[in-house]
Each structure stands twice: as structure tokens, then as C-alpha cells.
């Protein structure tokens, strides 16, 4: 009965939505775009160890400042390794324009194999080119972008080559000194010599009475790390001094960095598996108070720990403050937490219509994005279970799951609600796979948000948005000068056709995913933005007027002229 009482579920999750007859919102263009041939490896297909279950990440960033988003995909391995020369390798795809990609991995110097997981994108040395930080089981990598299409791995020398098993990571300038710092969420201390294999008769690990891989429970969590950017190409681990928990490691998987309380500094939310989530409130100087329980984001609505995976900040209700989305393990609702002011969040998952359909899936990647450019932030969830044998457990969960797309709509009294749009979202939202990481990106620069997703033990999926043209949009490339050059932490307030929208350049977000923080604003039928206010991380505020829709703007901090 304990389990029954603790369970949170809903009926409609079990009722298949009728198939839509209209055109699909997203079209799978993985092959046409040139991303075919990538096959992610995450250990054995049977998933004997927890290391093999969390999947690999992805990043979308402009390696050469040509205005087109390129794609980086780390890859995994297997515990018994591969013969030399046959290892799965990470891949870098350069966007040739018009959304067609070419594999430039070897030319870029990124072909060395390692077991990679999460990615953080940011111009850590403010040289004008986005760099790449990749977490790993083994030393994490920092790939410095030389600006000529090649990268140099400098992790160890820069002081960020930590060997612990890293998951998501986020660049952000936590002390507002103009340099991007780095937060790395570590998962569990995984030693295959010490962790029992699935089915080990001496140490059987069970889930609902069934033998499964061991963990995370019973495994030591590894502490997260906050690195301060020294401004000379190196970083210093300041975790303890900054108030990041170092006495015990929780099972960190997702990270999002954003100024949720609007006080001008960047805070950190960490989505932890099977342990409380953490919210580090920035004191204003790059040191933090952990306020997860106090602010109402640490646990589920019934006070239970959640198996949290992915997370993202966004203003779903248009009130000008950042709300928080969290994906969770199966048989736990995902959580939408609305910022209620004064440091507190209130859980609105059920009130906005997200509880019913998010109970059974196991969610990973998620982000707020306006797929139809109507000016309201929608949501997607990448789903897939960790136990290949879960179907046989007869608990209503399946290893392969479909993704979910929810459209933000006005409910009774004008309150926002999310309606399930998965049935008209296209094949990827029907085809069941075990999805993991990813997020939105406008890879073809047509003004609407596409999606890139990774699938464990399979190929990536690139989904072109074919519905976004129903609304107008404007895209902003922000370039910090006094602020960090990536402008992570910038807050945009847009007024168009009588509506005001806030968008934020968060660090990290989703799951094992990162993207250049270009900001796309859906404008609905508005032909122009009446006013745009940019609050830069440095504290500087700039205002612009009468910006035409349908364009991409380069906003350079301190410059009044928009290109």
C-alpha cells in the first residue's frame, strides 16, 4: 500500500489520442540533412550497468560564426572496449547552409573516442567562438574552438578535466565578472569492479521484484563541481567555498542555470535522480544558498523524492518570471513549477493539464519552446525507460516510448494549459524508441524551432518544424562585451501587438544538451516588435524599438545599432 499511496497517476495517460489527419508539425529529416550513419553506443543492449543507461547528449552551436547552427554528438562505448580503430566516435557536423550538414569531425580534431555524456556550449575565453565542454566517464573534455574550424582539447590544463562520471553541465557567469564559469552535475561513482552486474546472484538488484541493473540506490553519489573561470583560460574548483554541497554527492543528471528570482545573478537548479533536487540561490557574489526544499522544488507534490532527469527554465504563463520544468522517472508526474514570487515555486503540473500524460513515461530531455510562434512557450518531452525488461514487468511502462509535444493554450479564465499535440507532431512522437537528450534549434533558419534528439543505442533524430510558419518570429544573436560574450544570463522583454513576453538565455537546460543561446521569439500575427528590452548579465539594460518580424538580429552589448 505504501507504493500505491505514493503513486501518482492518471487515467487519460492510458487512452491513446486519436490520430490527426492534418499535416505533421515535425518531419524527420535526419537522413536528408546528412546526419545518417551515426550510431550511438551505450554499453550492452541488455543494460547490465547503470553506466549504460543514461545515453549520450548533443549540442547545437555555430562553430564558425556563419550564422548556421552546427551539431556535435558525443558517443559512448562499452565496458569491454573496442579494438583500436573500431571505437564509436563523437561526430561534428557542420551546417553547410539550408540545413544540410557535412561531417567535419576529423578535420575539426574531435575524432578521438571517449565515453561522452553531456555537453555545455559557451565562449569561455571570450574570443568570439563558442567552445565545447563534454562530460565523460573518465576525464571530462574542454574543446577550445580555435576559430578556424578546429578544436584543441585543453580540459586537463584548464583544470576542468575531472575524471568523475559527469552528466549535464552548464556554462554561466555566476559572479558577473564577464567570464563564463562552469557547473558540472556528477551522477554516481561508478566502478565496474565494485558495482554488481545485473543478475549477479550474490548482489541481486531488483525493481518491483525484477532483476535489473544496480543503482542509483546503494551507489555513492559523486559531488557536483562549480568551476570559477580565472579569466586566463583556466578554471578553479570553488565548489566548497561557493556553497555547493561537497559532503555528499546526490545523483545529478540535469542542470539549468538562470536568474529565477530576478535579482540579477544566475542561480542553479540541479535535477537529481532518486534524491532531492537542489536549487542554489546566488547570493550575488557567486556563492550560493541551497534552497530547494524551502522554495518547493526539491520533492514531488506528495513530499517524495523524484527520479529527476531533465530540466529547463522558461516563462510559460507570460508573467515575466521564470518557471521550471522537470522530467522524472516513470510512475512519477513530470513537474511544472510556477514561480510564485519571493523565492517560492508552486507546483501546477495538474492545474495546467500535464499530470495525466506524464505519469507513465520516463522523461529525459525537455525544454520550453514556441514551436508554432504564437508567442506562448510550448513543451516537449523525450521519453524512454532505463530497463529493457520493463515491458515484461506488467506495470504499464515500456522501454521504448514515444516523445510528447504539448501546446500552450488559454484555458478557462485565461489561465494557461498544455494540450497534448503529440498526435499531430509527426512520426517521432508516435514511433517508440528509447530517447534521451536533445533540444530545440532552428537549424534551417526558417524562423521556427526544430528539434534534435538522441536515442540510446540508435541514431539521432533531427526533426524539421513545418508548422512554425503559421506565426511570425524574430531571432536574436546576443553578443556580450562587458558581459560574457555568449550572453548567457541575458533577459529579453519583448512587446508586440499589445503583448509582453520574456525570454531568457539560460545556461544548460534540458538533458545532456546545450545550444548557443540564440533567442527566438514567436510573434503570432504581429508584423513587428514594438519594444525590446535587453538586460545583459552585466546589469546594463538596452532598449530597441520597431523591429520587423521575420528577421535575425545581432545584438552587441553596448551598441545601439542592430545588424
Amino acid at each position, binding site marked *: *500500500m*505504501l507504493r*500505491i*499511496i*505514493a*503513486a*501518482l*497517476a*492518471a*487515467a487519460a*495517460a*492510458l487512452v491513446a489520442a486519436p490520430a490527426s489527419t492534418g499535416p505533421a508539425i515535425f518531419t524527420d529529416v535526419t537522413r536528408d540533412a546528412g546526419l545518417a550513419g551515426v550510431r550511438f553506443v551505450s554499453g550492452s543492449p541488455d543494460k547490465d550497468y547503470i553506466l549504460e543507461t543514461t545515453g549520450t547528449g548533443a549540442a547545437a552551436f555555430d562553430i564558425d560564426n556563419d550564422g548556421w547552427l552546427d551539431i556535435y554528438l558525443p558517443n559512448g562505448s562499452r565496458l569491454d572496449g573496442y579494438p583500436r580503430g573500431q571505437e564509436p566516435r563523437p561526430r561534428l557536423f557542420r551546417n553547410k547552409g539550408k540545413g544540410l550538414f557535412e561531417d567535419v569531425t576529423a578535420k575539426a580534431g574531435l575524432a578521438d573516442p571517449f565515453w561522452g555524456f553531456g555537453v555545455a556550449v559557451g565562449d569561455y575565453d571570450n574570443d568570439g567562438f563558442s567552445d565545447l565542454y563534454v562530460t565523460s566517464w573518465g576525464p571530462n573534455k574542454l574543446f577550445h574552438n580555435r576559430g578556424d574550424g578546429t578544436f584543441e582539447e585543453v580540459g586537463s590544463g584548464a583544470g576542468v578535466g575531472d575524471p568523475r562520471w559527469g552528466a549535464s553541465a552548464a556554462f554561466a557567469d555566476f559572479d558577473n565578472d564577464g567570464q563564463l564559469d562552469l557547473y558540472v552535475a556528477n551522477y554516481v561513482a561508478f566502478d565496474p569492479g565494485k*558495482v*554488481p552486474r545485473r543478475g549477479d546472484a550474490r*548482489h541481486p*538488484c*531488483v*525493481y*518491483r521484484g*525484477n532483476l*535489473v*541493473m*544496480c*543503482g*542509483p*540506490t*546503494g*551507489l*555513492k*553519489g559523486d559531488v557536483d563541481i562549480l568551476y570559477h573561470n580565472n579569466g586566463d583560460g583556466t578554471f578553479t574548483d570553488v565548489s566548497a567555498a561557493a556553497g555547493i554541497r561537497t559532503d*555528499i554527492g*546526490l545523483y545529478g543528471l540535469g542542470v539549468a542555470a538562470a536568474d529565477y528570482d530576478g535579482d540579477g545573478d544566475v542561480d542553479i537548479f540541479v535535477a537529481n*535522480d*532518486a*534524491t*532531492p533536487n537542489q536549487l542554489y540561490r546566488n547570493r550575488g557574489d557567486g556563492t550560493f544558498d541551497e534552497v530547494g*526544499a*524551502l522554495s*518547493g522544488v*526539491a*520533492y514531488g*507534490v*506528495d*513530499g*517524495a523524492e523524484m*527520479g529527476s532527469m531533465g530540466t529547463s527554465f522558461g516563462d510559460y504563463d507570460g508573467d515575466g518570471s521564470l518557471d521550471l520544468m522537470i522530467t522524472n*522517472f516513470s*510512475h512519477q508526474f513530470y513537474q511544472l513549477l510556477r514561480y510564485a514570487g519571493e523565492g*517560492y515555486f508552486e507546483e501546477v503540473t*495538474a492545474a495546467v493539464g500535464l*499530470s*495525466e500524460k506524464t*505519469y*507513465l513515461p520516463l522523461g529525459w530531455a525537455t525544454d520550453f519552446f514556441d514551436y508554432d510562434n504564437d508567442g506562448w512557450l510550448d513543451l516537449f518531452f523525450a521519453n524512454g525507460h*532505463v*530497463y529493457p525488461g520493463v515491458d515484461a*514487468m*506488467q*506495470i*504499464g511502462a515500456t522501454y521504448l516510448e514515444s516523445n510528447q509535444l504539448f501546446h500552450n493554450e488559454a484555458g478557462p479564465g485565461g489561465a494557461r494549459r498544455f494540450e497534448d499535440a503529440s498526435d499531430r507532431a509527426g512520426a517521432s512522437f508516435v514511433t517508440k524508441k528509447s530517447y534521451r537528450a536533445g533540444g530545440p534549434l532552428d537549424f534551417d533558419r526558417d524562423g521556427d524551432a526544430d528539434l534534435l534528439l538522441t536515442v540510446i543505442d540508435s541514431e539521432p533524430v533531427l526533426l524539421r518544424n513545418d508548422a512554425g510558419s503559421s506565426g511570425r518570429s524574430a531571432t536574436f544573436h546576443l553578443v556580450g562585451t562587458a558581459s560574457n560574450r555568449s550572453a548567457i544570463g541575458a533577459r529579453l522583454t519583448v512587446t508586440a501587438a499589445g503583448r509582453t513576453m520574456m525570454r531568457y538565455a539560460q545556461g544548460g537546460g534540458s538533458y545532456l544538451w546545450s545550444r548557443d543561446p540564440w533567442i527566438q521569439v514567436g510573434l503570432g500575427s504581429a508584423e513587428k516588435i514594438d519594444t525590446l528590452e535587453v538586460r545583459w548579465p552585466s546589469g546594463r539594460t538596452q532598449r530597441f524599438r520597431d523591429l520587423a518580424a521575420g528577421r535575425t538580429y545581432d545584438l552587441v552589448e553596448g551598441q545601439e545599432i542592430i545588424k
Partner: protein
Amino acid sequence: MIRMMSRSPGILGMLLSAGLMSLGAPVAVRAAPATPDELFARADEALTAGRTEEAASLYGEALAADPRHWPSLCRLGEIDASARRYPEAERRLRAAVEINGDNGRCLSRLAQVLLVQDKTAEAEPYLARAAELMPADEGVLFNLARLYETTGRLDKALETYEKYLAAAPTSSRAGTAHLKVARMLNQARLPAEAIGHYEAFLRSQPDKNEVRAELAAALMASSKYPEALAEYDKVIAAGAADPAALANAGSICLLMQELPRAVELLEKSVAADKAPIPPRIGLATALAQSGEHARAVEVLRTVTADDPQNNRAWYLMGQSLMKLGKAREAREALERHRAIHERIMKERMTAEPQGHP
């Protein structure tokens, strides 16, 4: 089989016997002494007609003529068993089986006699052999399934009950078998497979509310929440819901955000049995989600009074107190929660590895 035919009177023997009697024998010719098979046939007729003593006498005559006449031994064993003379029945049936170990009926009867005397281990090989010889015999299959069940071999019990149900889907014991299969599947954590068997049992005995509550729990375990609630509703309507059923129904309503009903059911559960803590946590959650934070705090205080180490209760109390504007009390509750939870986390990380909680 050949041995059995040679010893058994069979249809041919019975017809022969009947024909001789109807034709009669020439007066001048002295009747030949009856063969053991003829005596056996007459004995069976008597037995069928309910003349047990006569039958026993004739079976005895057959044995006198042929001490290895195993069909007669078998019948006498059956007569002994009917009269509850189990040791005698066992002796005779063993003797019969020793002569012919391939007669399913005899093997089955011996097994039954042994089972009645709690000689389960001895009975098993006879019953198993009988099931091989008579794979569609519902009595043999049922007894064998029950034997496996009582000796804890649930896989074999399950398989045999399923064979029984395939052989005798409309038998009087089919309902019982369905229930047994359902419970075993449930025990084997296969609730989705159990559901159909519960439903089959309830078709024959719809008033068994305790079984309906089991069906509801299996539906719940299979994540079929609306169907589970519908079954709980029937149990509740019949006035047969125990506190656990009320708590489960209430928690489903909580999951489905039917908050007033969740509160009502969980309150009833708690009123019926104040001891369990999970329904109280569920009730407090439902109250808090309904905006009734003062009542939620009231419920949570009963939890922390009974279980001061319940970190969830302290956390929920802190959240509700905050909503009530009682910041100092809220912080105290959250601090209690934090202290307890820290210890729990540390213990969990140093415990044996496990799957996901």
C-alpha cells in the same frame, strides 16, 4: 497398455458376460467357473448399481481366482477409500499399481488416498504419472495443481491450473482455479495476466467483494487506474471496502486530481483505521492540493506525533505552513525534515546496491 487390456474386462468382456447370461447355458452343460474378468464385470455392475457389498465380494472372488488381478485390487481400494479406510485403501491401491503402473485411474486414486493422509511427497509421483496418462482429466490436473501449490512450487502449480482450465473451462471448480491462478500471477508480479482470471472468477461469483478488491489492486499495479477505480467503486457501493481499499481508491482519485473524492475516501480510510501512515500522507497531500492547508497541517501533526522520523510529513507540513504564512513554524518543520532526510540519504548511499526506488 497391453497389460491393462489383458487384465481389464473391458467392453468386450462385459458384452460377452451379458450375452452368456441372456442366452443362457444348456441345462445339460455344467457352467464353467467365471473368469476373474467376468467376476470383475459383474462386480462393476453391482458397484454402479450401488450394491457395494456385493461388488466387494465379487472383486474378492476375482482376486481369489487371480491374486494379481489389479483392476479388482484397484476397485477394492476405491471402496476402502470411500469408506475412509485409508490404510487399507492405500495397501490395495499400492498393490494394484505395483502390478500395473500405467493405469491413470488407479494411480490417481492412490495419490488421493495418500494426500488425504498427508503423505504429499509420496503422492506426487503417482499423481504426476496419472496426469501424463490422462492429460485432460480435470480431477487429476486439479489435484496435481493443488499439490504443487501446497508444496510451494508455484510455477508448476500455475502451469497445471492453466492446463486444468483448458481441459475443463466450465467445470464447477473452474472459478476456484481462476482465483488460484490470479493470486499466483499476482504473487509472481504479473498483475496484468492476473486480471483476466480475477474477472473470470467474478463472473461466476460476482458478490465476492474481497476478490473484487484484489482485482482492483491488480488493475492498479498494472497502471490501469480508471478500471481499478471502477472496481473499487463497486466494492465501496457494496459496503465492503476495508480501510486499504478506501485508501487505494482515494489515492487513485488523488492521482486523477479528483480532489474532493480523494479527500472523502482517504478520510474514511483514516477514520476506519488510524494506524497506517501512508493514507494520512495521502490525505494531507489531497488537502494541500485542495488549498486546505490548515487541515493538511492538522493531519500531518498526527503523523509526526506517531512517527517523528517521517521526513515526508515534516516536508509537507513545512510547505503548508508556508502557505498559511507561518514562516517560523514552516522553517522549523523544514529543518526537522532536512535533518532526518540527510540521515536517510547517507544510509541509502551506503546500503547494498539496488534498482531504482
